[in-house]
């Protein structure tokens, strides 16, 4: 079913450009001791698309996201990023390669302001060393201003101007999620990984978040890979969906294809609707 899409990229019905494959997971297997969390899974992520990984709890989707972001190193298989095989790396090295992420349980710098949090997303764009910062204050100030501009555009985009100077700890849950998204976006990532972006939200917040995810993809052309167990949301958002169950891949394709896949219906939808 993936063969239906040309390798060099195409334009979707609603006018977005989908490019070639930016990341490919090849036969990934991840074990924790004797437990197999991910078993021989392969799939790819194309430039500019919204790719979802779904599955019931314990299906291994969080593990998959952690493999992509370098928090886990798989025992078997290859991660091919931008055409090159990725050697085992630390999470911060993966981040520096242009893969930004959010966390299911929100990992923000609680004591810092929203602006400072978003600015940490720009750290990799600040090249001046400590000594040269001391000696060439002007140059590092310019660098700071350039990065602040990027941060402000994102703050404006996600409509969090009013809390710019508020310490994150004081914000309600839904806003924290948005700040976390802002920080990830500030890194101008090649791939944005969202770990259950709607978890714990009410209907209205979910709608807001969906809108922002679509807008981000649309406005910046950001490639987005997200995991989520809220089926309805995923089907509306994504271009293609990988379905996992017990660490295996049981489906892969457009939302419509996945919806009609008997194995998916049995394993997942049946469970979700009882």
């Amino acid at each position, binding site marked *: 079913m993936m063969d239906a899409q040309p390798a060099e990229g195409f334009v979707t019905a609603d*006018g977005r450009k989908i490019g070639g494959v930016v990341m490919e997971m090849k036969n990934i297997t991840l074990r924790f001791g004797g437990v197999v969390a991910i078993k021989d899974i392969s799939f790819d992520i194309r430039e500019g698309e919204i790719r979802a990984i779904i599955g019931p709890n314990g299906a291994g989707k969080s593990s998959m996201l952690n493999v992509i972001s370098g928090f886990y190193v798989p025992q078997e298989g290859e991660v091919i990023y931008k055409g090159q095989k990725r050697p085992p790396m630390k999470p911060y090295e993966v981040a520096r390669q242009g893969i930004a992420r959010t966390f299911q349980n929100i990992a923000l710098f609680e004591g810092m302001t929203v602006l400072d949090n978003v600015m940490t997303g720009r750290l990799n764009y600040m090249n001046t060393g400590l000594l040269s910062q001391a000696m060439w204050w002007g140059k590092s100030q310019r660098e700071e201003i350039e990065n602040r501009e990027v941060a*402000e555009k994102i703050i*404006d985009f996600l*409509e969090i*101007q009013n809390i710019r100077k508020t310490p994150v700890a004081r914000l309600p849950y839904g806003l924290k999620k948005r700040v976390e998204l802002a920080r990830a976006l500030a890194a101008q990532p090649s791939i944005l990984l969202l770990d259950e972006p709607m978890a714990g939200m009410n209907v*209205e917040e979910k709608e807001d978040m969906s809108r922002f995810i679509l807008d981000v993809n*649309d*406005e910046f052309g950001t490639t987005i890979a997200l995991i989520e167990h809220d089926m309805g949301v995923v089907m509306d958002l994504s271009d293609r969906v990988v379905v996992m169950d017990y660490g295996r891949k049981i489906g892969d394709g457009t939302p419509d294809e996945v919806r009609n896949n008997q194995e998916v219906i049995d394993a997942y939808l049946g469970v979700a609707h009882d």
Partner: protein
Amino acid sequence: MAAPSQDAGAIASIPALLDRNAKRFGNKPAYREKEFGIWQTWSWAEAKEEIEALALGLINLGVQPGDFIAIIGSNRPHLYWVFPAAQMVGAIPVPIYQDSAAEEMAYVLDHCGARFVVAEDQEQVDKVIEVQDQLHQFEHMIYLDPRGLRKYDHAKLHEYAHVQAMGRAAIDELTPELTARKSKLAYDDVCVMLYTSGTTGKPKGVVLSNRNIIETSKNSSEFDSLGPGDEVLAYLPMAWVGDFIFSIGQAMWTGFCVNCPESPETMVTDLREIGPTYYFAPPRVFEGQLTNVMIRMEDASKFKKRLFDKYMAHARKVGGKILDGESVSAGDRFKYWLGNLFVYGPLKNSLGLSRVRVGYTAGEAIGPEIFHFYRSLGINLKQLYGQTEASVFITQQPDGQVRSDTVGVASPGVELKIGDNGEVYYRSPGVFEYYYKNEESTKSTKDAEGWVATGDAGFIEPDSGHLRIIDRAKDVGKMANGALFAPKYVENKLKFFPNILEAVVFGNGREECTAFLNIDLNAVGNWAERHNLAYSSYTELAGHPKVLEMMKGHVEEVNASVAEDEMLSGCQVHRFVVLHKQLDPDDGEITRTGKVRRRTVDEKFADIITALYDGSEEIATRTEVTYEDGRKGYISATLKIVKAKTVPASAPKAVAAE
């Protein structure tokens, strides 16, 4: 700086004022807007260039003299520029409330037959697209913020910046046409059309001429010596006549700077950064700010709270007098100076009001407590009384003659008279031309001599010459025993408690008065938190026995105060309920400007009103609500009917003939 005094007759239109300002004030800031965290500034000369580029672009798009151009969006310089740009090409700007639902918008757009719409962003564009099939004359839409709109069909859509670019590109070809159209603008031509959000019926299009706007702006600017050095923060809806007069009329007349906030949520920060010298806010904004201060003080350390209480008490004693220029002892002055150093100054600064020279409130009566709080801080807050039909100003309070219970003396150029039924009438250069496509209403509102009925009942105090408003003329009624029934008077007293957001009093033609109350979720929620009351929803909090107890206290306090006024002592509230839902414009219970729609409330809550009079202890009810996304649902609750103590009135008095 003194206001420019010159013959208004020499300048016949807003575009002419713009030309004058660009010449006279050239590089002085005219507009500021905070974007991406930084205040962007346009000088008068720059603004003129932008506006003319837009005007040329509009000609290029095919705008003809007499066309209506609707403007939908929040306060932003680019949207303010549409007004003079439209006027320059002979068109009539029609601002529309940006929070109106699509159908409300459809009515207005269809009524004026707007050929062009300028919309702020995707949200507004979507609303217009949704209803465009009902709009026969609609042709083109210009949008300001391109976000999310790239993939839309651009046959009828144009980006604001592109329209300007096209105008600039065609500057040589189109400038003669623009000059010709500008030179034709006359003093009695239509300047703007504003829709009133009436409490009943469909909105009416109030047509105001250049004369109305320019004369009114000139008179009111001189009244308060507004000058080019003043700063305002433009944050009230652009479709409201007040914002039009402040941010366009007076700004153009005096050349002061209009500052636009970053977003509605950042208002408080922006206010602090700009520090306006001329500031307008409806009472609910002042109330909200005061409530926030009080909540913060509850959480402050004991020392700070003591300091605050002590100095505020002093300010209440002498602050107002100092502001009014009355004599105050040197010791009190020194203490006030100290208080200013430690309390009032920092407080005003954090409210963003430290530079306010002239502040106004209007629209509703303001609580005397609230009013005096601000004045005692040394903020020159005054009241005015106005209407869209009057280009705002009917009466206002001169410096030094400020009281919370009057709305001031007739504004310059305004004549007042009181009708036989107590209704207030006025005549002024600001009186509107006519209601658009509604001759009948025009006739019933404005008589042949130019007198306009306000719809409010009031009287002029014989000694001071100040006007006092009692209530809406049609809402002032009589109780069964013939005593005067003035619900607004009591409602306002109730609403002066921070815990009460809204109140509706009943009693017309009945033996006793009763009331609906809405709690203020902010204030009561905070109170509940401090008293360790657990609640999971608005409904639950509103029905909490302790909350009812507190409300009962408030009502009884009001009863005592109502009883003091012999004429109105029959209006004491005998029984009340605390409503299970907040009165909401989405449900049609209040208007978008926050006025109660009595008839809707009467119908919708008929069962509760009945229960208030039939001796029930409680009433189970179910109410339809509309969620923000337009879906409907129901809230069920059992409301307790609370009896409040009343002060025995001497004897029911009949309405005295005034």
